[in-house]
C-alpha cells in the first residue's frame, strides 16, 4: 500500500447479506485459507451485526454471495460448550498465548421457523490474525443440527 493510501479515511465496504446491507471496513475481513466445506472457493468473510439481529450476527462471504450465514456464540446455546482445537488448527490460526478466539455456530432456520444450530462444526476466528476456519472433527459430542429453543 502506498503511503498516500494510508492518509485517506478508511474506506468502508457495503456488505450485502440475506439479512440486510451492512457496512464493514477492509480491516474486518476474515481470511479462511481453505474456505468452508461446501463453499471452498470463498476465502474472505466479514462478520456484521445489528441490534435487530442480536444475539445473532451474520457471517457473509465476500468472494461469493451464497455463503451468507446467521451465526451465534455456541455458548449461548449450550452453557457448558467446549470444543478443543487440534494442534494443527491452532497452528493454522496462529494462536498465541493470550489470544481470545471468537467462536461462531451456524444457524439454520427451517421453513416452519424451527431453528437449529451446528454445534459440531463451529467456525473459529483468531481476531488478532483475522484468520478463521471451520472445525472438522471426526468425533464430537455435539450435533450438526442442535435444536435452538428460545430459553
Amino acid at each position: 500500500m502506498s503511503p498516500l493510501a494510508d492518509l485517506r479515511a478508511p474506506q468502508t465496504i457495503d456488505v450485502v447479506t440475506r439479512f440486510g446491507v451492512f457496512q464493514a471496513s477492509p480491516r474486518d475481513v476474515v481470511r479462511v485459507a481453505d474456505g468452508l466445506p461446501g463453499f471452498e472457493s470463498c476465502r474472505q468473510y466479514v462478520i456484521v451485526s445489528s441490534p435487530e439481529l442480536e444475539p445473532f450476527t451474520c457471517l457473509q462471504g465476500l468472494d461469493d454471495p451464497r455463503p451468507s450465514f446467521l451465526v451465534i456464540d455456541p455458548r449461548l446455546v449450550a452453557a457448558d460448550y467446549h470444543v478443543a482445537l487440534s494442534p494443527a488448527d491452532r497452528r493454522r490460526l496462529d494462536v498465541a498465548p493470550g489470544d481470545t478466539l471468537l467462536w461462531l455456530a451456524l444457524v439454520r432456520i427451517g421453513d416452519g421457523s424451527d431453528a437449529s444450530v451446528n454445534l459440531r462444526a463451529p467456525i473459529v476466528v483468531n481476531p488478532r490474525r483475522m484468520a478463521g476456519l471451520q472445525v472438522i472433527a471426526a468425533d464430537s459430542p455435539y450435533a450438526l443440527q442442535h435444536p435452538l429453543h428460545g430459553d
Partner: protein
Amino acid sequence: MLVFTRRRDEAIVIGDGIEIRVIRVGHDGVRLGITAPPDVAVHRREIYEAIGAANRSAAASQARDAAALAAHLRDRAPAGAGSPR
C-alpha cells in the same frame, strides 16, 4: 485415477511433503498414516461432506424470520445473561 498396490509399511508420496503410509490391513478396513505439511488440511471425506451439506443447508435456509427469532431469544435471555464474555 492412479491405482497402486501397497503392502503394510509401504507408502505413497504426493508432491512435496505428503506421505500416505499403510499401517495395517484388516478384514473390513485399512489403517493409513498421513504425513502432510501443517497448512494442508486432512479430513475423512464423509465427515467433510456432511459438514458441507450442513453449511449449504444453513446458507439456503430462510432469512425472513431471523429478526423475529432474534427478538424472541432476547426476550427469553436478557442481554448479557449467560454470556461468558
